[in-house]
């Protein structure tokens, strides 16, 4: 791993409702290139808010998010340019229902990366091939299963050739039998060296794939370490009781 972190988060705070809700209370973390960082924690601990601050879907109240040397919170930063290189996968897929699979996958590359439709479709088909969905390229999202939708959503992000991928509970909305196919795609991405930040309740995935796990509670990182340190040797009482509930 190169020395310079791809993402560097400093003193990140996010308040909602004019300060009534403190979702993040000063989060500091560096994410290295090709690192897989898994974020765990109880409901309402600020995991989603943390992830959404990384591409400024939520604008931080204080602190900074430095992505490839650019502070995204600085004024006059072109956030749209930065977001092209930060892929995001949502719990509820958020595919565009009025477009075919191919339409979903090529919208960004054609409109933003200046690719021709032919180039964009070629790339999309290659990626579809790899997740085993090449035969569904003309389907509409409503015609796909949850697992297929989420794999398409991952491919949609990959079509922008991002440097980092953010996942917010990508398997939480899936029927149990479809969780595996999505996790497999994510594992393969990790093997290929994609930098990933993954919020998940899949502790098996965290153990197997994560380079580092952070445990959040009440808007703070309470504990961080290797999967072994977090799962086999938890230090804080809060992490111990959290693990007791979920494992």
């Amino acid at each position, binding site marked *: 791993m190169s020395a310079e972190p791809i993402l560097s988060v400093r003193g990140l705070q996010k308040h909602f409702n004019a300060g009534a809700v403190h979702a993040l209370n000063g989060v500091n973390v560096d994410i290295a290139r090709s690192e897989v960082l898994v974020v765990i924690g109880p409901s309402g601990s600020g995991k989603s808010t943390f992830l959404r601050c990384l*591409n400024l*879907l939520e*604008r931080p109240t204080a602190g900074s998010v430095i992505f490839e040397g650019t502070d995204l919170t600085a*004024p006059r930063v072109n956030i*749209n*340019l*930065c*977001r*092209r290189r*930060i*892929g*995001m996968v*949502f719990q*509820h897929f*958020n*595919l*565009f*229902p*009025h477009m075919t699979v191919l339409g979903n996958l090529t*919208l*960004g590359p054609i*409109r*933003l990366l200046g690719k021709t439709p032919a180039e964009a479709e070629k790339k999309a088909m290659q990626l579809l091939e790899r997740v085993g969905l090449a035969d569904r390229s003309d389907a*509409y*999202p*409503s*015609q796909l299963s949850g697992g297929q939708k989420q794999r398409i959503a991952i491919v*949609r*992000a990959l079509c*922008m050739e991002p440097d980092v991928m953010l996942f917010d509970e990508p398997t939480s909305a899936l029927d149990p039998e479809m969780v595996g196919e999505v996790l497999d795609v994510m594992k393969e991405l990790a093997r290929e060296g994609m930098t990933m930040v993954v919020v998940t309740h899949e502790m098996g995935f965290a153990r197997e794939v994560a380079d580092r796990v952070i445990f959040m509670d009440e808007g703070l990182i309470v504990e961080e370490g290797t999967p072994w340190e977090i799962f086999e040797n938890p230090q804080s009482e809060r992490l111990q009781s959290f693990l007791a509930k979920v494992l």
Partner: protein
Amino acid sequence: MAASFAKFKETFVFNFIEGARWKYITNGLLVTLEVTFFSLLLGIAIGVVVAMIRSSYDQMKDELRPGLGSTLLKLLNEISRLYLTVIRGTPVVVQLLIGYFVIFVSSTNTVFVASMVFGINSGAYITEIIRGGIMSIDQGQFEAGRSIGLTYIQTMRYIIIPQAFKNVLPSLANEFIALLKETAVCGYIGLMDLTKGGDVIRGRTFTAYMPLLAVALIYLILVIFFSWLVGKLERRLRSSER
């Protein structure tokens, strides 16, 4: 029976056939459809723009950093609100008279003036229709668009508006039907629309019931026909629900 039929026929011929007076009706019908159509187009154009201003302001007002962009958006939002208040707060006939005698005084093209006035008028109502359509789209769609790097405008254009438009298509069609009837007041500025055409015949023949009932019947048939189309459209949209 035979006598009254003969009388009816005589009145009919007198009102519509003699002097080719039916042309008042057919030409008037064309004018009515023309004004309705252009008004709807203008109304949709205005509605999309104003709805985008209003909802982008509502969405971004907490996030906006001070600067030229936010000042401009605030200004546009205030103008939009003023437009909505004034248009919805005054009678359309008054707007029509103001349009003809005050704003477009130099124009002799009454079809143009009427289309502008009714377009600007229905734009206010269409704004609310489209705004509702935009708000009915899941926030996740917006976030997905922004997360791949689309700008606010691009997200609206490629993702939100197409979906919202499909949702509001039946309401827009109903707006068309409402406009069809509303434009009947165009005679106030001397436009020879369907209503005015019937009224002119009445003035020439001094038999009121025949031309006026004919006009009413034509409106009724049109409205029933377009409502039937809207119903079909709604069923089609629902069955293609994806």
